[in-house]
């Protein structure tokens, strides 16, 4: 079918269709004339068409008690009505502002194209998933989940059960005949099921020196690490990476229905995460760790392209970063000392919100009275090793290699008190990142007194107020009418959007005694406690995801171009849908800032 006149198939999203898709599109389009003022789609209504504007202007608006709220403008080349077609419910009302010519793509053809053209579908789902969730729309949220396979969709290995009294030899035969590599163990003397893997049996005989007729009962691991059939497959990947295990048990309504190994997960993702993780575990020197970690950027790029949710990405990247640091720590810190020190990660790594390998932000906590003359030299090596793998040194010097960030438990507690009395300038910055600290290696118990001292700050309203003040320092670049203002130098996503959200949540968490580090966890806890409205909480989570996603895309682009990743974004270079999402996100930031100003009595 010859193309329709005046519709550019080389422009997104139509360039994502293959030749067959373009031909089906060209065969199905009609051209409608909408006189100025015509209501094209009503909010909440289904739409029979997706429309592409050929000429004219369409405005999207919402109606509330105070009248019509202008939401967005659409011009030639823009697509609207896709969301209404996919979900059966338009989010906004659309009206022709001027006489408008628009190509009409019938809903059925659009759906068929989505179903058969993955790249085309991804273009719409990516934006719409977030968009839908922004509107608090359940359909939109489920749509997003479609992009992530469920555990139940993977090929599960059967969960075969044996009694604890079964011998190693029998169990081993059973593994072979059933072609599985793990078994569930029923032990009347233990609580719940246990699991033994092929490796466990082998180790018991070859390294533990057990006879092959010994019972498997004592070999079983408990409790089972489980994922639910309805969990995203990605969750299983994160769990295995984090827990350093090769297999998880899949449960349905709490009953084991099978087991899932890395191989099965990999069959779905074809990604490098497990290879990275395995190689890390096997790495016996610094170079090997470095080799294993090098693939991370590629993994992130791949998962990003596959449409993985940003929350899972950050979880996975943080899990891998943690493993890298823990492995380096084990390689460098003598075994006898590992129990008397604790390696802390601060800031975004502490919150598990890293999207790529970024600046080192860490500190070393030493047990009181520990004398370790080699600490400086060891931490220097640690920092250099991280730098060698691709984690640049922190420009602010927040690193265990810096004596300022290598301190005893009581010194740390004393410093927290200093911060409390003088929470300005550098002290405020230090305090902020310390509030996100978590232990990644060493003795976690050492951190308890520090954690308690940090939590105690939450009762100091004067401190909270000065700590929260910087959230207002940067106003989102929105025009009077809520449009995006163009900044020639670009928009600093970190300053303009991430910081106000993350820091605002950090201050609120501190005030309400919430120990969570992760922003999403903090939001959930604050909402549960009634300290944040469910609506603002949901919007904040979505805004954070949008900003993180745009930032990741920007940084991947920079890396591709061989430039240093930065946080500057040029809104005019964004696709329209991203620009809209960004604008929504910035509105949320602005609302949150206003709310915080009231809550912390800040002068706005």
């Amino acid at each position, binding site marked *: 079918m010859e193309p329709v006149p005046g519709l550019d198939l080389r422009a997104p999203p139509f360039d994502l269709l293959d030749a067959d898709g373009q031909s089906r599109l060209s065969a199905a389009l*009609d*051209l409608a*004339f909408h006189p100025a003022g015509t209501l094209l789609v009503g909010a909440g209504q289904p739409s029979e068409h997706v429309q592409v504007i050929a*000429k004219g202007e369409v405005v999207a608006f919402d109606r509330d008690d105070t009248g019509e709220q202008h939401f967005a403008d659409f011009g030639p080349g823009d697509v609207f009505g896709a969301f209404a077609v996919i979900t059966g419910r338009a989010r906004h009302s659309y009206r022709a502002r001027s006489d408008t010519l628009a190509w009409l793509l019938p809903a059925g053809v659009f759906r068929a194209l989505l179903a058969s053209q993955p790249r085309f579908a991804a273009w719409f789902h990516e934006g719409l998933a977030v968009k839908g969730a922004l509107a608090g729309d359940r359909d939109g949220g489920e749509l997003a989940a479609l992009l992530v396979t469920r555990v139940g969709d993977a090929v599960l290995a059967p969960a075969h059960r044996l009694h604890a009294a079964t011998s190693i030899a029998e169990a081993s035969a059973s593994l072979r005949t059933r072609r599985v590599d793990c078994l569930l163990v029923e032990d009347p003397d233990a609580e719940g099921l246990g699991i033994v893997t092929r490796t466990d049996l082998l180790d018991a005989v070859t390294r533990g020196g057990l006879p092959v007729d010994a019972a498997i009962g004592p070999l079983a691991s408990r409790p089972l690490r489980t994922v639910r059939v309805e969990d995203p497959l990605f969750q299983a990947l994160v769990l295995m990476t984090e827990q350093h295990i090769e297999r998880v048990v899949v449960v349905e309504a709490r009953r084991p229905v099978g087991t899932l190994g890395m191989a099965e997960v990999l069959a779905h993702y074809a990604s490098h995460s497990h290879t990275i993780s395995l190689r890390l575990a096997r790495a016996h020197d610094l170079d090997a760790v470095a080799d294993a970690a090098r693939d991370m950027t590629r993994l992130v790029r791949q998962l990003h392209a596959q449409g993985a949710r940003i929350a899972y990405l950050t979880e996975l990247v943080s899990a891998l970063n943690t493993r890298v640091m823990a492995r380096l720590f084990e390689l460098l810190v003598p075994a006898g000392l590992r129990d008397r020190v604790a390696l802390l990660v601060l800031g975004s790594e502490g919150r598990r919100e890293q999207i790529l390998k970024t600046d080192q932000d860490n500190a070393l906590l030493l047990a009181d009275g520990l004398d370790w003359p080699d600490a400086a030299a060891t931490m220097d090596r640690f920092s250099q090793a991280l730098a060698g793998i691709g984690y640049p040194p922190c420009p602010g010097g927040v690193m265990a290699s810096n004596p300022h960030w290598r301190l005893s438990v009581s010194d740390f507690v004393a410093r927290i008190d200093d911060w409390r009395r003088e929470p300005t300038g550098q002290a405020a910055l230090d305090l902020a990142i310390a509030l996100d600290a978590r232990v990644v290696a060493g003795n976690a118990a050492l951190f308890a007194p520090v954690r308690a001292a940090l939590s105690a700050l939450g009762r100091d309203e004067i401190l909270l107020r000065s700590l929260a003040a910087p959230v207002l320092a940067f106003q989102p670049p929105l025009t009077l009418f809520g449009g995006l203002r163009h900044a020639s130098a670009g928009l600093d996503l970190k300053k303009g959007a991430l910081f106000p959200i993350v820091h605002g949540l950090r201050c609120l968490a501190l005030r309400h005694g919430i120990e969570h580090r992760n922003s999403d966890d903090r939001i959930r806890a604050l909402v549960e406690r009634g300290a944040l409205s469910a609506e603002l909480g949901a919007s904040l989570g979505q805004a954070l995801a949008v900003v993180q996603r745009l930032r990741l895309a920007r940084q991947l682009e920079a890396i591709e171009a061989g430039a240093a990743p930065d946080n500057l974004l040029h809104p005019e270079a964004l696709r329209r849908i991203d620009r809209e999402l960004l604008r929504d996100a910035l509105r949320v930031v602005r609302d949150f800032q206003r709310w915080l100003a009231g809550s912390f009595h800040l002068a706005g």
Partner: protein
Amino acid sequence: MALPPPLRRWWLRRRHGDGPWAALLAAPPAGERVVLDLETTGLDPASDHILSLAAVPLRGRVLRVSERFTRRIRPERGFGIDSIRHHGILPAEAAGGAPVRAAVREFLAWLGPRDLLGYRLDFDLAMLAPHVRAITGFDLPNRRLDLAERWARRCRRQQPEVPVDQGFDHIASCLGVPVLDRHSALGDAVTTGACWLAMDAG
């Protein structure tokens, strides 16, 4: 020949109502038109040839481009560089088209009794006339609507003393309609239809 269309249609139905082309003579469906445009080797119906034909139904405020009829036509003899400059169809491309008689036959079967709409439609119909007559035995009975004439009537009504510019590009630009793919039959048909809709709106 000067009979008003309904009368002519009645008269033709009496003569050809049982013939193979009776469908052309049925009552035209209300509210539906077909925008027609041809690309030709030149502007003289006596000596020039049809190179392509595009027709797009128009119902309500929507040009039913998805129901379009388009044919590339093989001219019976060569054509010059001047005409190639105009329509951009190369002789080799034209040679891949359908024979004109077959294409017009298919078009008539597709068209049925629907009203025809075009820009300077008389020229296009004059190009088709010998083929239509040879195929059906009578002249095309469909009602005709012309964008240029409608435009001229409106201009004279609004500003009787100003000479009317009936140029295609001028009409489109006055109506705020983008000229889509000028000098392709489908592009001109779609632009003509969009202009008609714009005139309907005011």
